């Protein structure tokens, strides 16, 4: 059995001044090298779970270990990196894509030293892996939403983390963009031997890019392969209006395999 990348042991979390837990009794093991999708409705605690894994929040009870370390330590050592749902980046900064990708690496270098050549090569490789070489010298504020998303992922992988955490990475991305995104993730996964955790309420994003799915709505409902996302499972997770959700994401019982099928994309495009 592979060593655990992230372990949640009976984790509960409650935000201050709230009268109920955002997460309750979460037991979840993310294996090294796997691509885990965490699926659930808005307000189901997905982003909270990621913040606990990043050490940005502390569990009310239970414990979280990341690569055998505390989440804070793993984050400080650069072994886990994340891309947030809503980037807080100020895009008016006169910085190029390359300068943005170099930021976390540069922040670890003493001020009187130049960024080492090996690190510069890591920056270039990260840019190439996400397919951003063509616009590496462009100002960060001149990019489209999809390009910016790629650049932020390049920034995250440039530090060579072992775990990459993505919060709602395909929000606002069209069907063709989602397919390209899934291909890019597959490339990152194979070339960098990354453990990838994706949080999303979008079934298609989860089905296309993950080996396993954990369904979360305050509590963990099930672990399954993407093709185990049956209407019954989804009805339990989303707990209401399942028909509307199906309509929104155009998924059927063969969602996982269908996502890789161009015919499915055509149908989805026609539906939307």
């Amino acid at each position, binding site marked *: 059995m592979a060593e655990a990348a992230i372990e949640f042991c009976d984790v509960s979390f409650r935000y201050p001044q709230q009268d109920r837990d955002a997460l309750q009794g979460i037991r979840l093991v993310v294996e090294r090298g796997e691509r885990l999708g965490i699926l659930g409705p808005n307000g189901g605690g997905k982003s909270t779970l990621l913040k606990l894994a*990043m050490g*940005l929040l502390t569990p009310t009870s239970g414990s979280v270990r990341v690569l055998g370390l505390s989440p804070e330590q793993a*984050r*400080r*050592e*650069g072994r886990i*990196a*994340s891309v*947030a749902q809503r*980037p*807080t*980046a*100020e895009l*008016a*900064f*006169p*910085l*190029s894509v390359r*300068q*943005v990708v170099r*930021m*976390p690496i*540069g*922040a670890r*270098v003493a*001020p009187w030293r130049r960024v080492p050549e090996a690190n510069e090569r890591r920056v270039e490789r990260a840019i190439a892996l996400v397919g951003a070489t063509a616009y590496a010298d462009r*100002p960060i*504020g001149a990019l489209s939403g999809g390009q910016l998303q790629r650049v*932020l992922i390049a*920034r995250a992988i440039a*530090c060579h983390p072992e775990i990459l955490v993505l919060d709602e990475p395909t929000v606002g991305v069209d069907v063709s963009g989602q397919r390209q995104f899934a291909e890019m993730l597959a490339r990152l996964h194979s070339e960098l031997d990354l453990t990838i955790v994706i949080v999303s309420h979008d079934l298609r994003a989860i089905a296309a890019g993950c080996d396993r799915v954990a369904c979360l709505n305050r509590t963990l409902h099930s672990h399954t392969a993407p093709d185990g996302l049956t209407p019954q499972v989804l009805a339990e997770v989303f707990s209401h209006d399942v028909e509307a959700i199906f309509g929104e994401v155009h998924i059927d019982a063969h969602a996982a395999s269908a996502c890789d099928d161009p015919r499915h994309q055509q149908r989805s495009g026609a539906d939307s």
Partner: protein
Amino acid sequence: MRTIEYLTSADLAGLYWPIVLAGAAVALCCSALSVLVVLRRLAFIGQGVSHAAFGGVGIAALLGLASLGGATHELAMLAIVLCFCIAAALAIARFGDEHQADTAIGIVLAGAMALGVVLIDLAARRALARGEPAPAGVESVLFGSFTSVTETTAWIAWIVALIVVGGLWLGRRQIVFWAFDPGACEAFGLERARLRAVVMVLLALAIVVTMRLAGVILATALLVLPGAIALRLSRRWVTVLALAHAAGLLGVLGGLVLSFEADLQPGPSVVGVLLVLLAAASLAPKIKA
């Protein structure tokens, strides 16, 4: 030209060179910060911190520091004002990011100003009762006083400028990361709150030394205009920094020359030159390099 006369005459050079040197120091530290102030929208925080100076000036006046002479007076005044400004900066920083800090800024600004005005008034009445000269009034805090700049002021200005620029250089990679993307810098293991506090303290230092010369109101202008000018001209980080320094230096020195030649108030002259530069920059095409 009066400027040449002021700077070369044996009688006047001792009075005017400290003004020019202190002005250059102020331009250096304000320009270095102004790019961050504009991009991270810290101008209102700068206002709050600069108005905290009123409280410090009021206490210094009540303690009778105005009656002390020379360097002792200068240092004591600056130390008290600096303490007030740093306390205000850190109080504002505790409120988190700038969207949440508005309330803190409003409280600090109103509270410190009210305290300062009351204390300065009390000190003036006490001085009058004793038959002593009145301490510097509210107006001198608002608009500063280049004419009272001494050699000690110039030394202090340069020391503060070197601390500000040195601090920014040492923390440049972390500070720029924080300023560009505060949320992500925390996720990459940097201390977001600490970086914000460092920037606030550097801002307070720059404001204290600037307001001694240009006053509270014009200190904010010097922290905004060089960055705004540079960002209109270029979209390259290094070029923007260089242009901000050039604009700041040109604005301060040009403003001083204008005030010497036309016998105008130095503070408003400096801001006037910077505004002309801003108008020119708005019309100019962006520099590609």
